[in-house]
């Protein structure tokens, strides 16, 4: 058995009255790839912050290489070789690759002068170690997300990382890039570095992890070698529920709501055709670089289609701007809720009516009363837990905030509702609610398109799933015919 690098015993952490961690034990060994899985709100980000010294636990013991650390803070953590790579990497787009890699070490050693030659050598050495090839003199703003991640990894290596923690490292990577990242992580593991990955995507966890820890509601559910787990146990322990085998099966209808014919946009997707009947919840999936998200952006007029035709209720329409889309009653719940979907500092009411303001312009003025009434009604109908329509959206949880984004669009009385990653960062209860809402809307005759990489979500809630691969339609399948693993294979097979 390899020696233990980090040991956490009975870690508790509470914020105000809320218990984020309730007695978590965790052991990480040198030279292993350990996966930390948990849904949103399970406490995994709090746990990472405890390990990196950003949060001091309310109770519990921390041992690094056998030595008890009483007051762990970020500086002590870094001295012991604990390095965290967050999702935004915390790198400088305006500086060169070499500088980014060498910067932190130079600062921590208290260097007064910038050693350009040394920085280049250091950067080349670090890249050599992980097998990455980049021009050290190029500015980071010119790099892809994957290469920025490489820069972040290189930086931790020259800081003598012994434990490397990556927070959802594959979220923005293409399939090839994920493979490359995994190769690098394995290489680091072989050098004796402990690697901890935060992830909850089933296939990726099974591919890379050697050991697995599952968190739920601030408690550790289980830890074990990966071969002790199968798909069912993983999902059950992650969500606390059995995989339900119920599918969404609407009444068959011939009434077509939406049709896309050979639509395309340069560099994103091409020759995509599909059709949506009344009652359908239509799923679109694929890997990050497959063009799935771009279809949503294109249909809503953010980056409009350049070829092909789209029809709504049998009539051909042109969408060249988001304004066009709203006029044609197309609604879009975007991928990034916080920046694209919501006006965080404005009230729930302002958010709810944001896409339908002109509706309330009656007899020369906006009807405040009607806006207020509509908001109250939507809060009730959509099951949003909110103090009042005047409360700022910032105060809402992820799930309730997402419901407000949906309410904003339902208030426009849409003909077609496109949702891109509708349940990302949403807790389980709200996720269930949102799925029920989507089914209900489809039943009411609104066309619903769900773009997602959450395969169980698609299988359970859609009655058609379009699989995108390299910007083209790979297949359109019925969920009852496939399981999650088969779907995953369709997405990634070469």
């Amino acid at each position, binding site marked *: 058995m390899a020696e233990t690098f980090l040991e956490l015993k009975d870690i508790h952490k509470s914020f105000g009255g809320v218990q984020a961690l309730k007695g978590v034990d965790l052991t990480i060994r040198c030279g292993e790839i350990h996966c930390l899985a948990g849904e949103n709100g399970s406490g995994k980000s709090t746990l990472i912050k405890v390990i990196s010294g950003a949060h001091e636990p309310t109770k519990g013991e921390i041992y690094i290489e056998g030595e008890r650390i009483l007051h762990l803070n970020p500086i002590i953590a870094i001295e012991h070789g604990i390095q965290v790579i967050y999702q935004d990497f915390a790198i400088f787009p305006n500086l060169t690759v070499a500088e980014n890699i060498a910067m932190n070490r130079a600062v921590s050693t208290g260097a007064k002068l910038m050693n350009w030659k040394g920085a280049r050598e250091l950067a080349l050495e670090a890249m050599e170690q992980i097998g990455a090839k980049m021009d050290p003199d190029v500015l980071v703003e010119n790099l892809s997300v994957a290469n920025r991640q490489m820069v972040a990894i290189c930086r931790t290596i020259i800081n003598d990382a012994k434990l490397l923690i990556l927070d959802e490292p594959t979220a923005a990577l293409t399939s090839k890039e994920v493979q490359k990242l995994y190769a690098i992580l394995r290489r680091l593991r072989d050098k004796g570095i402990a690697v901890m990955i935060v992830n909850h995507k089933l296939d990726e966890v099974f591919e890379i992890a050697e050991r697995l820890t599952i968190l739920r509601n601030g408690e550790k559910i289980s830890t074990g070698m990966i071969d002790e787990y199968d798909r069912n146990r993983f999902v059950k322990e992650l969500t606390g529920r059995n995989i339900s085998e119920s599918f969404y099966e609407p009444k068959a209808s011939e009434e077509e709501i939406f049709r896309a014919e050979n639509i395309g946009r340069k560099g994103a997707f091409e020759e995509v055709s599909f059709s949506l009947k009344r009652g359908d919840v239509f799923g679109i999936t694929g890997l990050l670089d497959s063009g799935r998200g771009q279809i949503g952006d294109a249909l809503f007029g*953010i980056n409009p289609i350049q070829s092909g035709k789209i029809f709504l209720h049998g009539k051909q329409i042109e969408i060249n701007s988001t304004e066009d889309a709203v006029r044609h009653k197309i609604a879009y719940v975007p991928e990034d809720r916080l*920046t*694209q979907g*919501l*006006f965080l500092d*404005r009230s729930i009411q302002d958010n709810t009516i944001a896409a339908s303001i002109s509706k309330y*312009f009656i007899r020369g003025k*906006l009807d405040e009363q009607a806006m207020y009434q509509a908001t109250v009604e939507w809060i009730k109908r959509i099951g949003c837990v909110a103090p009042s329509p005047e409360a700022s959206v910032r105060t809402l949880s992820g799930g309730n905030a997402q419901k407000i984004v949906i309410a904003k669009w339902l208030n426009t009385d849409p003909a077609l509702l496109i949702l891109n990653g509708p349940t990302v960062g949403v807790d389980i209860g709200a996720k269930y609610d949102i799925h029920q809402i989507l089914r209900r809307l489809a039943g009411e005759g609104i066309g619903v398109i769900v773009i997602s990489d959450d395969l169980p979500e698609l299988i359970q809630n859609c009655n058609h799933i379009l699989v995108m691969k390299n910007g083209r339609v790979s297949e359109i399948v019925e969920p009852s015919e496939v399981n999650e693993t088969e779907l995953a294979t369709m997405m990634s097979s070469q």
Partner: protein
Amino acid sequence: MQKITNYFKKADRIALALLIGSVLIFVLMGVTHPKFFGKSNLQSMLIQCPEYGILAFGMMIAMIAGGIDLSLVGIANLSGIVAAVLMLRMGGTNLSIGIGIVAAVLVGSLCGLFNGFIIGFLDIPAMLVTLCGLQLYSGLALIITKGPAITGLPETFSNIANGKLLGVPIGAIVFVLIAILLCYLLYYTVFGKSLYLMGTNKIASRFSGINNLRITMLTYCLSGIFGSLAGILMASHYNSAKSDYGTSYTLLTLLIVVLGGVNPNGGRGKVMGVVMSIILLQLVSSAFNILRVNAFVKTFAWGLILILVTTATYLTAQKEARD
């Protein structure tokens, strides 16, 4: 009764604080210097404050949109000069005055549209664009005048700012009308609602089907029109037009809007707060005049007040965050 208490709850604390400040100065000055209540002082206050007050409204809407308009003074001077030149060329008849005013407003709206287009379409920071705009519009004004002021404007024209309607200076009436119009535009129209939303989050407004470019261009166009109206009042008040009148107004209008509770990051700001802030500053300014304080001390005081107010706002915000 319920309605009234509700109204006071809704009216922000900033406007209330400014009102209290104004009353204090009014009473204090009135008691110690009876001249402060004199007719001539009240009259001159009402003539002065519409000029920069209207400019401040332009600054306010630009700031609510998440930007800033540093070109306002340039637009004011350019419009004033265009109006003056047209009037003189056409012989100073009443018709020519009308044409001059219309042309000035047209110039103002065109300058504003240009600002708005560059900001919205090319996505260049408003601060930079309007700074360039100031240079451009002042430059155009200088090309027209070749330097010296244009004088000898028709008497009827100078009566606009110096004349009275029912004992109230016409400029003040224009100011009140604009304030009412602005309240309507901001609170009761689709444009106003969209403006506040866009100022809060430009990306989310685009993702809600709001046409950001149109709102930005409209906003700066409106701000340009306000600039030109202030320019007409200035030209009428001084009975002349020059390319570098009112250079201190840029800072003054910034001070007014920040003092009036408009958020420099966009999305927040009320007409009432800005009006209160204009009144307060006019009272301070008049008090300085009556106390015979050097005009330069006033410039100093404006800067000091701006800094003190923002510092105070920051400290209270910090305290609230802690609680």
